[in-house]
């Protein structure tokens, strides 16, 4: 097995008495696409937020690029500048144009010049069909366009790992397609991604591994073919029978 880009061992996270993640083990290698599936409240989003150090974990170790990032002495900003994240509710900054949203971090965090940052952002926006939206403010665009812009914003910092938190959950079915097409493209280009998703068909097609989370545990993980056709656990079977269209 090649060197892991991200390795999670025995991760635990609780809010007060409520344990939301326990015994999480996860290995992500470069070019992997990991899909986290499971019902709402199973801990998918919290796991992603822990990986990005947005939440302080209660136990376990997270290693990223060979360094333990769960060490309190680590500067979280250094980690986040290498990890991109896209949220369910887009979280674009409404007071900035799409272009400014996309150039903010490259310019202020990564020290890229204005010209270069804008060039990079415009190229990516054009690739994602948003060339003519660059100077608009986010609230003037459709949900699908906003989510694509949010993806571009995350990609503009050239992250080595991309975390996508149910990025299509707030979109209507027609718009889901346009966002997933882009994620599929990214996967084909070898972008390393971890995504929490309810899009089972997408997970089956694109994922290199699927993790089924239940009550804060990874109950089962493996290649999509295995998880979707021969789930080992009864709980996984029940979940899949509810979310998968009858074959």
């Amino acid at each position: 097995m090649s060197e892991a880009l991200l390795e999670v061992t025995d991760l635990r996270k609780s809010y007060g008495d409520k344990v939301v993640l326990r015994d999480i083990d996860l290995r992500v290698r470069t070019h992997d696409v990991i899909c986290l599936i499971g019902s709402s409240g199973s801990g998918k989003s919290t796991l992603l937020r822990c990986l990005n150090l947005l939440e302080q974990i209660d136990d376990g170790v997270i290693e990223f690029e060979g360094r333990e990032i769960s060490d309190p002495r680590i500067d979280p900003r250094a980690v986040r500048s290498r990890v991109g994240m896209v949220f369910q509710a887009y979280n674009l900054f409404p007071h900035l144009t799409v272009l400014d949203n996309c150039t903010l971090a490259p310019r202020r965090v990564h020290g890229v010049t204005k010209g270069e940052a804008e060039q990079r952002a415009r190229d990516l926006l054009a690739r994602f069909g948003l060339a003519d939206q660059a100077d608009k403010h986010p609230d003037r665009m459709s949900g699908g366009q906003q989510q694509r812009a949010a993806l571009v914003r995350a990609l503009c910092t050239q992250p080595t790992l991309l975390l996508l938190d149910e990025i299509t959950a707030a979109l209507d079915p027609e718009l889901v397609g346009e966002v997933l097409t882009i994620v599929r493209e990214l996967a084909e280009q070898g972008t390393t991604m971890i995504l929490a998703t309810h899009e089972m068909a997408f997970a089956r097609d694109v994922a290199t591994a699927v993790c089924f989370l239940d009550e804060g545990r990874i109950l089962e993980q493996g290649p999509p073919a295995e998880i979707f056709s021969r789930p080992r656990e009864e709980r996984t079977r029940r979940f899949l029978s509810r979310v998968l269209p009858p074959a």
Partner: protein
Amino acid sequence: MSSAPDTWRPSPRELERREIRRTLRRRSILVSTVATVLVLGGLLIGTVSSPGWASVKATFFSWDDAKAAFPSIWHAFWTYNVKLFLIGEVLILILALAVAVLRQSRSPVLLPLRIIAVIYTDLFRGIPTILLVFMLAFGMPALNLQGVTNSLFFWGLVALVLSYGAYVAEVIRAGIESVHPSQIASADALGLSRVQAMRYVVVPQGIRRVIPPLLNDFVSLQKDTALVGAAGVFDALFAARDYANYQFNFTPYVVVAGYFVVLTIPLARFTDHLQHRAMERERQGAR
């Protein structure tokens, strides 16, 4: 699953991490303590070692004079300043809310009131509060109106309410306008009337957002109750000036300043507490 008993014990790595966090926390406490002592100590030493400190100490920080002036200032403070702002704040909130909501109203019948509201805020925010106090406290009695009081206290209060009402109305309006239009849309969709949408959806959210600037204005009002002294109401500042002029000692001014500070701090903490509670209630688990 969840039925499995939780046998978790912090791992050695986690314990080590906690120790590191404790060390980091201790270090930041140490840094903040040293920084605070250096800055405050420096300021204190700078003041005390200035050439005129001895005479400043005698005229501004005389313990005997503080004790002597204390009761009369307390009496004046309680009967005028405290009453002024306690009554004032309630009236200001009512007036300001009415003006703010009026400015947001769309009903054609209310147009004249809307115009009055606009003129009122423009005009009364523009006039210095002390001028309003003079004009009302001296002007209204001079009109010799039947059945209208000549009480300086009353007209001083009216001046403060009118002046601050205009400021606070604009603060509340800003809060109301900051509520996202989708909130009004969903209130409309539930069949609420325009007035009901304001009353139950928009205003409660708007007010909550502007609590810090509202508090700001109220603290400012508490201090500006001293302005009525200029019109002859025997308030705390007047009492202090009275003593200072007699005894050639300015310590009572410091005493008055102390009263005002002591008054505003609990209010500030109380609003902090309210805000914190509201946030806990509404944002818990929000991501």
